[in-house]
């Protein structure tokens, strides 16, 4: 595959691994957090850890859109899915996220019309094909996916579609990062910045990380060479005593972001005063709802939902995993009570979740060299 295989070249990978070794300070332990679940997935899928010395530790962050959905929101979605004449649509991973009494997949088996879609436009298409039913799209994701939901809603309005509704769970990336940096139990040396989100918001919003918290951040792409190069750039900043926002993913990320997409977001969405994150609790100004101009499409206004805040199961340590405080295998229920086929926590469901990635790809003894 052209334009893809070039970023998976084993020889270039080995060369970069050599350069990383050269900038690592012997005896120092580095903890770098990759914010985005896409990076977590790449790291395990390609075995990137194997190319790093053991004292460069990659810590997985909160940027997996499925992982941060709290149980109460899943319950609300299931309640809507069970309404008569509703076709409930969501992304595939979302179907397996446990609510307090089963998942959307269980609701489907029990008779609800729940359908997996690959994009919000698929959901709109279903709405147009079923004019006598309500079609609800369960929207999730950071600024990465929010523009596609926004454009779909704009199209629905332009085409006069009256039976299409959105249950909005979109979130923004900066507030959880700030919350994370403010938490006292965190010791990180730097961040691999989220590439996809940055294609929309740009690299500028991350300036507060070096400025206020004194940590370097390098916005990175998702191919294995991208991740290795970002690690190298962070380590080089540390070695040279620099601390700034750098952009490894400049082939798609402009510093100012995508202004057109940001405009559309501002038109269709409004910040909620606060939004609950799985394991992280309520974070103010971190979630989006439909703006008043799009209230007609808001599933939360159309349907009465329980709206109950459901506490995470006691045994579940997703919050600590999402903050990088513990490794997936350090969770009390990891791999025994909580597995991908019978998940307790969200991190075990999505392929971008740290627990699922570690369980599916990383569950074996590695021999790595300490520098």
């Amino acid at each position, binding site marked *: 595959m052209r334009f893809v295989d070039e970023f998976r070249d084993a020889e270039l990978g080995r060369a970069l691994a050599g350069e990383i070794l050269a900038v690592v300070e012997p005896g120092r332990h580095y903890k770098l957090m990759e914010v985005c679940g896409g990076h977590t997935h790449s790291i395990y899928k390609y075995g990137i850890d194997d190319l790093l010395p053991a004292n460069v530790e990659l810590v997985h962050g909160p940027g997996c859109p499925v992982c941060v959905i709290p149980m109460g929101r899943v319950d609300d979605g299931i309640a809507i899915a069970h309404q008569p004449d509703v076709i409930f649509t969501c992304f595939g991973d979302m179907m397996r996220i446990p609510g307090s009494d089963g998942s959307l997949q269980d609701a489907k088996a029990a008779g609800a019309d729940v359908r997996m879609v690959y994009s919000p436009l698929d959901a709109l298409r279903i709405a147009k094909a079923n004019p006598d039913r309500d079609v609800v799209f369960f929207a999730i994701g950071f600024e990465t996916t929010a523009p596609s939901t926004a454009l779909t809603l704009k199209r629905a309005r332009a085409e006069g579609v009256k039976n299409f509704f959105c249950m909005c769970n979109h979130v923004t990336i900066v507030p959880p990062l700030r919350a994370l940096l403010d938490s006292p139990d965190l010791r990180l040396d730097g961040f691999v910045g989220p590439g996809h989100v940055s294609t929309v918001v740009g690299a500028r919003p991350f300036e507060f990380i070096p400025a206020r918290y004194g940590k370097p951040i390098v916005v990175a792409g998702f191919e294995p060479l991208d991740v290795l190069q970002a690690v190298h750039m962070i380590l080089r900043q540390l070695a040279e005593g620099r601390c700034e926002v750098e952009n490894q993913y400049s082939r798609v990320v402009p510093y100012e972001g995508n202004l057109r997409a940001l405009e559309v977001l501002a038109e269709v969405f409004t910040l909620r005063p606060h939004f609950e994150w799985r394991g992280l609790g309520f974070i103010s100004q971190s979630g989006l709802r439909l703006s008043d101009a799009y209230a007609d499409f808001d599933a939360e206004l159309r349907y009465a939902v329980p709206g109950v805040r459901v506490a995470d199961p006691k045994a579940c340590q997703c919050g600590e995993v999402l903050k990088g405080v513990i490794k997936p295998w350090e969770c009390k229920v990891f791999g025994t009570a909580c597995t991908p086929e019978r998940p307790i926590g969200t991190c075990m469901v999505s392929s971008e979740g740290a627990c699922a990635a570690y369980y599916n790809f990383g*569950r074996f003894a590695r021999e790595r060299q300490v520098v």
Partner: protein
Amino acid sequence: MTVSDREQRILGIIETARAKRAKFRDARITMAHGAGGKATQGLIEGVLLPAFASPALDALGDAGIVSLAGGDVALTTDSFVVKPIRFPGGSIGELAVNGTVNDLAVAGARPLALTLSLVLEEGLAAEELRAEVEAIARAAETAGVRIVAGDTKVVERGHADSMYICTTGLGVVDPRAALSPAALRPGDRILLSGRVGDHGTAIMLARGEFELGAEIESDTRSLWPAVDALLDAAGPALRCLRDATRGGVASVLNELARASGVAMVVREADVPVHPAVAGAAELLGIDPMYVANEGKLVAFVAPDAAADALAALRAIPGCEDAADIGEVRTEPPTMVLVETAFGGRRVMDQLVGDPLPRIC
């Protein structure tokens, strides 16, 4: 430095838990139970095996072996519910013949005869039925099997999607074959008979849900010629065979690693994949190793016979791209590892969930 002892201990506990026979604890059947991954395993090991326990069934081969006075016969059955019923490279009729023939072939049995059950939906066009009957007849002739009995049922409109087909196959176990998961030894080579993921991808694209334009055809074909050639070339050095249908090559390797307590290492760069399949899989976030095939087998061969076996395989039409993709090892037991093309390693686990329902 090795991984921390604590991590190691936890990994040990997890593998012990995984080695236990799977339980079935679900309240209802979901699509995942039909996907050939962990949920299917739970259904088989938790509900079916305990009810019907017999040595032939417990072996969990693709066909059951029954000993008769004159020798061993292999018996197998399969249902076909693919949607759409016609797709590039084949149709439900061909699948129904080749699927069952292949289950016999990889049990080391020469396919002899099939029975055929048709479940037809009210309103099905006679023309469509005729086309499938002809496809069945052609595929049976090509595979050298006869249809010796059959049954027909019709259900109300909406209760079957056009048609479902069930075939049962009978074959005679070849005297050259001594195939068993228990025969796997560290050092054995893993051979794959061609490119992976063609069938699943062809079905996916034929459904038109993704608006991807690519020319990919199902690989549906009889695998008996390939098995025959392998038995000739390797004889008793041929340890075990599996056809990599639902759940793909990854599922087959996991099943065998678990059944025989060995480890397997696959070199990703050596696995043949059609560029269009690789492209579609990349876009959809699916690993081709988990995508279904309908004419691909995985063969485990003793190291000194592997080169001859591979050459024999490549001489068979449809197996020109056959490759040696890895080997059997001792550590870590019951696990399948991948050496990634990028130079790292990872686990290749059983499939969880259902990337693509009703592909066969």
